[in-house]
C-alpha cells in the first residue's frame, strides 16, 4: 500500500534459546504474525504487558532485529528475511524515544555533540547549518541554547527525556517510535512530556507508535490502538472503539485493572484477568489467553481465533468477539 508510512505484513521474530547440548533448543516466538499499517500523521498506541513482544516488535521496526518471517515496509524500504535495510536511509525515516532517560544518553557527550554528530554523519558538513539545526531543535523541545554544552548528568529526568526527543527528531524522521516515554519519569513531569510529544507531532507532521502500559496515556495520544498478547495482536481499532467497546477479554481486563477512583470503569470486576501471562516459550494451545479468560470455552483451547472484524477498522481475535458484556 503506497499511502502507508509503515506496513507490517505477517511479521514474525523468533529466537532460538537454550543450548543443543543442555536441554535442547527451543523457539521463542516473541512476535508471531503481526500485520499492521500506519498512515502518515497517525499515532498508533501499542499496548501490552511485559513479555507480550512489543519491545521485540519495536526493535524489528527499527531494523535492529531481522524478521524470521513476513516483511516490514517502512517509508519505501523493504525489510524481510535476509534483506536488511540501508541504515542511513532508515535513520532518516524512523527514530526512537527510549524509556529510561538515564541510560539512553551517552554520559560523556554534551547535548550539542549528541545532536550534531548525527547531522554530520548524514552529510551536513556546513558548521553554521549544523549549529542552527541543533539550536532550533533544542528550542523545539524546550531547552535553552546555553544548555548545549552541558552533559546529561547536569539535567533532570524530564530534561533528559527532552534531549532524547530532540535526538530522535534531529534527522527529521517521519515516524517516531516512543517506547514507554514517560513511565520512568516523575509523575509531576509526565504531563509536560506528553504535551510536548503531541505538539511536536502536529508541528512536524509526525507519525508515532506509542508503546505504553499506561492506558490513560494511550487513550489520550492515540488515533488507533493495537493490543498485544504473547506475540500476537489480539485486538485493534480506533481509540474510541478500543476503550468504549472493547471486544477482546484481555483488553477488557487491562481496562478493568486501571485504578481510577474518579471514574470507576463501566466494565465489571468479572472482567479482571486471573493469573499471569504465560511464557512465550510455551504458549497455551488455542487462544493464548484462555487460561486467564473469564469467557473460556472448549473452542478456545482447540483453536486460535482469527483476528476478524467486529466493525469497519475494528478487529478482535476472540471466538466470542460478538458477545457484548
Amino acid at each position, binding site marked *: 500500500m503506497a499511502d502507508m508510512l509503515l506496513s507490517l505484513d505477517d511479521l514474525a521474530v523468533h529466537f532460538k534459546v537454550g543450548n543443543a547440548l543442555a536441554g535442547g533448543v527451543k523457539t521463542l516466538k516473541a512476535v508471531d504474525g503481526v500485520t499492521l499499517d500506519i498512515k502518515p500523521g497517525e499515532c498508533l498506541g501499542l499496548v501490552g504487558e511485559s513479555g507480550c513482544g512489543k519491545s521485540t516488535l519495536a526493535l524489528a521496526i*527499527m*531494523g*535492529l532485529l531481522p524478521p524470521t518471517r513476513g516483511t516490514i515496509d517502512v517509508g519505501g524500504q523493504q525489510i524481510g528475511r535476509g534483506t536488511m535495510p540501508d*541504515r*542511513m536511509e*532508515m*535513520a*532518516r525515516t*524512523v*527514530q*526512537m524515544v*527510549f*524509556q*529510561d532517560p*538515564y*541510560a*539512553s*544518553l*551517552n*554520559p*560523556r557527550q554534551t547535548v550539542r555533540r549528541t545532536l550534531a*554528530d*548525527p547531522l554530520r*554523519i*548524514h552529510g551536513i558538513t556546513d558548521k553554521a547549518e549544523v549549529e542552527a539545526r541543533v539550536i532550533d531543535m533544542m528550542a523545539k523541545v524546550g531547552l535553552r541554547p546555553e544548555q548545549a554544552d552541558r552533559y546529561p*548528568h*547536569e539535567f533532570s529526568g524530564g530534561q533528559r527525556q527532552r534531549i*532524547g526527543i530532540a*535526538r*530522535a527528531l534531529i*534527522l527529521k524522521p517521519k515516524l517516531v517510535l516512543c517506547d514507554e516515554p514517560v513511565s520512568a519519569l516523575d509523575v509531576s513531569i509526565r504531563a509536560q512530556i506528553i504535551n510536548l510529544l503531541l505538539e511536536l507531532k502536529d508541528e512536524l507532521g509526525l507519525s508515532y507508535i506509542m508503546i505504553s502500559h499506561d492506558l490513560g496515556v494511550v487513550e489520550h495520544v492515540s488515533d488507533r490502538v493495537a493490543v498485544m498478547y504473547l506475540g500476537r495482536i489480539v485486538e485493534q481499532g480506533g481509540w474510541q472503539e478500543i476503550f468504549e467497546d472493547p471486544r477482546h477479554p484481555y483488553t477488557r481486563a487491562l481496562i478493568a485493572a486501571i485504578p481510577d477512583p474518579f471514574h470507576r470503569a463501566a466494565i465489571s470486576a468479572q472482567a479482571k484477568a486471573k493469573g499471569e501471562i504465560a511464557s512465550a516459550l510455551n504458549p497455551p494451545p488455542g487462544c493464548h489467553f484462555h487460561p486467564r479468560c473469564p469467557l473460556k470455552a472448549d473452542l478456545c483451547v482447540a483453536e486460535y481465533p482469527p483476528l476478524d472484524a467486529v466493525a469497519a477498522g475494528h478487529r478482535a481475535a476472540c471466538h466470542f468477539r460478538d458477545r457484548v458484556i
Partner: protein
Amino acid sequence: MPKLKGGSSLWIGGGLVAFAILVAVFAPWIALTDPVMAANLMNAEIPPDWEYPFGTDAQGRDIYSRIVYGARVSLTVGIASQICNSLIGVTLGLTAGYWGGWWDDVVSGLTNLMLAIPSLVFALAIMAILGPGLFSLVVALGLTSWSFSCRIARAQVLSLKSQGYIQAARILGYSDLRIMFTQVLPNILGPLIVIATLGMGGAILSEAALSFLGLGIRPPFPSWGSMLAEARDQIRTVPWLSVFPGLAIFFTVLGLNLLGDGLRDILDPQSTTRRG
C-alpha cells in the same frame, strides 16, 4: 566532590611513579657518572659512601648512576609494552563484545589460550627467537599479556551494548566502528586505565626476570633486572649490588600498583553517582 578522592594510595602511588619518570627523563643530569663507560677496576666493589652513594660494582661503575639510567629501560619497557597490550586487548575485546558471533568465539578462545600459558614462558619463547635487546623486550612483553584488558573490555561492552544510547546510535546510522570508538570506548576507559597501570608493574617485573635470565638488556648497558642478574653470585659478599636495584624495582612496582588501586577508586563507575 571531596578533594582527596581516591585516597592516599592514589597520591603515594602517583608520587612514586612521577618520581621514577622524572629520574628516567633527567637521567643525564641526575647521574654522577656515565653508567657504562665510567668503569674503573681500581674502584671495584666500594661500599656505599659519600662519593658513591649506592656503592660500586665489580667493574668499579657507580651503582647509583646505573640505577638512574636503568629507570629508562624499566619504564620504557613497562609503558611501551602496556600500550601494545592495551591496543591489542582493547581492539579484540571491543570488537568481540560488540559483534559477538564467531569472532567472539575466536577471540575468547585466544584469550583463554593466553591465560592458560604463563605469559613469562611465552615471552621467553619470543625473546629466544628475537634475541636480547630493548625492542625485543617490548615486543615480547607487549604481545603476551593483553588477555586481561581484552576480557575487561569485552565484559564492559557486553554490559553497555543494551544501553539506550548505544541503540540510539545504531538507529541514527552510526557505523559500528564509530559506535565502538565514540560511544563505547570513552565509557569503559576507566577500568582499562586501571588494568594498564597494574600491568606496567607486572611488565617491569617481567623485564627484571627476563634480564635476570640473561634474555633482556645485554651488559654492559644497565637495566634493573640485568643488574640483579650480575649481582646474584655476590648477594652475601657484596649486598649493595643487589639491594639497590631491588629497591628500585620494589618502589616503582609498588607505586604503579598503588596508583592503579587509587585510579580504580576514582574511575569505578559504582563510586560515581549516576543519578546526580
